[in-house]
């Protein structure tokens, strides 16, 4: 009988320890939109991706969309950011508001003279680390051709530990068609930069396969 009581107490203790409140598994996504040159024409595709994200992110997840322009390491470049409420009805309202903001931006976007991808990436890491999410993603919707303003310093390693960087819709430039090695070298350079920072690197050009987007 004593053994039974002891067993019951042990089971209760283990049960209670298993039932303690734990941090939920949340995801945080930071999407960078390239607004330089003619790439703005591609932003319609970015809208589809954002809608996909809004449809798939759950309560407690975070989403931010920022533009890449001449100097992207700035909060001013964040178009909209949100952490979805724990109540489904409120989260749905937030998603609707987010969609409206993105639609307005796409409708009124102006081309930037320079492309500061590294600055945007650095800004993204700051946001993602602040969210404290368990899964962090940076989605870069760009041709990955960096064009820094004179005087901007970006040749250093960006800390990307625990962050998955996905390059989306990396279009081929005119020079890439002439010499494809340019394109490959450009991707290799970014891969090296991400891996050096401790992150993970993926390229996703086929936007029909968005289901793989948020897989760690």
């Amino acid at each position, binding site marked *: 009988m004593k053994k039974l009581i002891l067993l019951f107490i042990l089971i209760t203790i283990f049960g209670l320890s*298993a*039932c*303690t*409140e*734990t*941090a*939920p*598994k*949340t995801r945080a996504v930071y999407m960078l939109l390239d607004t330089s040159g003619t790439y703005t024409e591609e932003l319609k595709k970015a809208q589809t991706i954002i*809608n*996909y994200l*809004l*449809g798939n992110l*759950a*309560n*407690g997840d975070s989403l931010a969309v920022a533009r890449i322009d001449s100097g992207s390491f700035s909060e001013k470049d964040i178009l909209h950011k949100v952490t979805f409420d*724990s*109540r*489904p*009805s409120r*989260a*749905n309202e937030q*998603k*609707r508001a987010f*969609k409206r903001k993105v639609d307005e931006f796409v409708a009124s976007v102006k081309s930037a003279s320079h492309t500061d991808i590294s600055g945007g990436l650095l800004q993204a890491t700051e946001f993602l680390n602040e969210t404290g999410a368990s899964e962090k993603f940076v989605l870069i919707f760009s041709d990955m051709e960096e064009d820094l303003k004179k005087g901007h310093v970006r040749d250093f390693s960006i800390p990307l530990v625990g962050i998955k960087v996905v390059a989306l819709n990396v279009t081929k430039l005119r020079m890439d068609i002439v010499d494809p090695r340019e394109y490959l070298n450009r991707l290799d350079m970014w891969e090296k930069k991400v891996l050096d920072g401790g992150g993970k690197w993926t390229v996703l050009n086929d936007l029909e396969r968005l289901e793989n987007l948020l897989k760690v």
Partner: protein
Amino acid sequence: MSSSNLWLLWSNNAGVSTGIWFIIIVTLMYFGRTPAHEILRGLARLLRNGFRYTSRSINSLSKRLQQRNKEVILTAGKESTERLIEREFHRVNAVVERDLSSYPALHRQISDSINRIEEDYRGSTETPPSPPAWLDAVETIAKIPRTGDPTIGRILDDIHDTIERAHKDTLKEYRKSSLGRHDLLKKMLPAWRRLSQDLNDVKSTIEGIQERSKIIDHQMETYEEIRQGNDRAARMLTSSSLTQFFISGLVLFIAIMGGIINFQLIALPMSEMVGGTAQLGPLSTADVAALVIIMVEVAMGLFLMESLRITRLFPIIGTMEDQMRRRMILITFTILAILASVEASLAYMRDLLAADREALTQSLAGMEIVQAQFRWIPSIGQMVMGFILPFALAFVAIPLESFIHSSRTVLGLTGIAVLRLLSFLARLCGHIAFQGGNLLVNFYDLVIFLPLKIEHHLHQRQQLNLIKAEKPDMKKLATDKKKTESVKSSDGVHTL
């Protein structure tokens, strides 16, 4: 020194070194043959005995478990039969209270009916007809001749008429009284019918009690068999218990499915109340809250069934005072009704959230938001389901009780089967170990077959040499024998 260096100790050539090692090993094995055989056989015997002992212990445990299981089955059967007999007695008591308690009144009613019939019968007794002297007088007066005085004739006629009239009056009176008697007999008819009906009622009541008494007799026979601990009774109860186990298991499975549907109905709207992000262990708080509601409903159902004395999982509830039990019935039913209402409202909220989600998805996909027609039908359906399911879950207590009771038997039977299998495996292992020892001894001899063959050959030659060495002595012995016999025979002749 590594193993490869050790292997190539005798020569750098692996083949040669292997050969030398083989010879050394075989030689050592040959000289150590007898103790090695003894060790192998001893080990095999040790293992066999160990396994046999294990098998015997397991067998004994299995028998003890079987005995215990039989006791459990018989006790459960005894309790169940006691309950059945008790219930039958309650029914008989109810019949007696309902029908036979009014027996004195019925008896009085029947007596009254009989008295009334008797009185009516007496009243209807036929009065004797008018005496025949009247007829004679009339006849005599009619026969008197009318000769002579006409006055006398007239007087006689008057007397005759008067007597005739009186006779007619008497007949009339008689008919009247007959009619009255017939009326009385007619009045007796409903009293007869009433009497017949009352007697039929008594008959059906008595027959019902007789049937119940037959059932009680049958149950008592079963009870007696169980009390005596017959194997037949144990087998019967085991079979019944297995059937109960599978049937209650099936019903519980259906209930679990119902519980899952219930969970699906309230889990999403729960996140609107407690938030959808917080987690308790591997589950979200909303899911845990939904599960808690379902569990509370099941618990309330259990208490309700216990209070109604349908199940007997908690003896403390069953033995409560009737007033307290009634209070408990009221409280548990009220809580169930409140939870059912909460579930119905949550189900409605779930429908609203689903609609909102659908609209958002359509908007994100760039589609025009379309309001579905007749959306109120699934909404009402979900609400009704949310209200009914808690009450349906309350009845889980009945199969749960059967399942718990029968699972004791099933677990016991499974335990016995496992122990028997273990016992068999232990015996098999013992046998394999013993035969394996013999096999190893043979294998040992196979490895050293060459020196053994040489030894055998040498032994044979040694024996042949011995035989050859012994042969001349044999011849000499034979000649000596012959000589002795001839001497003996010559002595005999001399004697003769």
